């Protein structure tokens, strides 16, 4: 058994909320730079060049990359040999979010009740997903999610007869409907299989996979590559103003499913695809 004080969880989550909102991960940074070189439309190149300037200003002047600093989505992968000490884990996580958003000059974008809609003023609560793993470590992923792109995300409960073609059409439909609203160039997270909620969760987690890393399953890898090419052929382009860079990557995760179903979750993320990962 390994004991971890909850103050350490709070401290890390606070730092990770700030880090994720001020700097992109190297794979995203690299993909955006590369897009600027390969984009075919002059206006598209101009938009991608502004996004480069934006990232530079965010880093140098301590301004969040985007004003929508998101709702904090947190994946906690907890080794079953770990024992937390000093309170309740969920409270410690939310305290980290509170400190990060208040001290990091991040926008408070959370309302306490979806219908009454009063701002909680500290961006809590986070949306937390727990997984119990082997070992004595804790892997934390903080992925602040903006809602311009979240609002354009979809779940399709397809029929088995729809097959792979049906899955591809569902992804393309979601991307075309999203268009300029989702702040392209986007990253498309897809979850195929499982149940209604499982496919959505897989799609969300797929967004945290590096954009230059393809699936290990051969047919999934092919689907990722084919869909990326088809999405970029839609012409939506950077900012939705036309061009050959509509998405930077399609990341697909799969899971076994029921004989009667083929659930597909599509979680779209803007070019500010933020996440910070740490292992404690």
């Amino acid at each position: 058994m390994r004991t971890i004080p909850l103050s350490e969880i709070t401290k890390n989550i606070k730092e990770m909320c700030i880090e994720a909102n001020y700097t992109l991960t190297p794979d995203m940074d690299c993909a955006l730079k590369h897009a600027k070189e390969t984009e075919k439309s002059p206006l598209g190149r101009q938009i991608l060049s502004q996004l480069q300037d934006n990232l530079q200003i965010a880093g140098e002047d301590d301004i969040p990359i985007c004003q929508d600093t998101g709702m904090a989505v947190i994946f906690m992968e907890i080794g079953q040999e770990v024992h937390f000490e000093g309170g309740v884990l969920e409270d410690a996580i939310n305290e980290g979010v509170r400190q990060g958003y208040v001290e990091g000059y991040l926008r408070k974008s959370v309302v306490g009740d979806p219908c009454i809609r009063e701002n909680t003023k500290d961006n809590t609560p986070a949306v937390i997903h727990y997984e119990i793993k082997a070992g004595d470590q804790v892997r934390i992923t903080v992925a602040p999610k903006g809602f311009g792109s979240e609002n354009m995300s979809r779940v399709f409960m397809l029929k088995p007869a729809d097959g792979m073609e049906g899955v591809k059409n569902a992804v393309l439909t979601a991307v075309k409907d999203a268009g300029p609203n989702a702040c392209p160039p986007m990253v498309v997270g897809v979850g195929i299989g499982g149940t209604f909620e499982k496919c959505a969760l897989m799609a969300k987690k797929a967004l945290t996979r590096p954009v230059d890393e393809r699936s290990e399953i051969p047919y999934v890898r092919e689907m990722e590559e084919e869909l990326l090419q088809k999405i970029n052929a839609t012409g939506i382009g950077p900012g939705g103003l036309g061009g050959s860079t509509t998405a930077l990557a399609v990341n697909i995760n799969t899971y076994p499913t029921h004989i009667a179903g083929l659930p597909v979750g599509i979680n779209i993320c803007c070019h500010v695809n933020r996440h910070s990962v740490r292992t404690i």
Partner: protein
Amino acid sequence: MERHMQAPFSEQDALSLKAGDYVYITGTVYTARDAAHKRMQETLAAGGELPIELTGNIIYYMGPSPAREGRPIGSAGPTTASRMDKYTPQLLDLGLKGMIGKGKRSEEVKAAIVRNKAVYFAAVGGAGALLSKSILQSEVVAYDDLGTEAIRRLEVKDFPVIVIIDSEGNDLYEMAANAVCDSAENSGV
């Protein structure tokens, strides 16, 4: 075409702007997003006065991140305009001349833009750090309790936007995607 423009602006200015024009705005614009629009609509329904003058003015759909000490504003990019579609035709009919946001608008909004000879601009979504550099001053003028969703008066200088829907109803998003698709078809891709 690249243009420089003052805000607020006249009908004549609006008529001269065409979808696809790249415009640098200098002057005063107001911010309002979901909650402020809802409250303005409720105020109008109750027969009240709006807290800002609409005639000739621009509303920027934006809720900033907090400003650090000594700075006018934090990150300040556009939010998705379609969420305001429900409220927009009424504001245009009352004199609103321009909107800055990102993303598609409804047919009802397009019709109201044409009817009132107004303009819908987009700023680059997700470039909030860059756009903040064109904002010189920011002051909350109404609905302070809404936090980031309060109505702010901004003084901007050369704030970069693109005309998406012009006063004739031309829509750049439709034009841009069609152009790329056409060229792809012609080149046999």
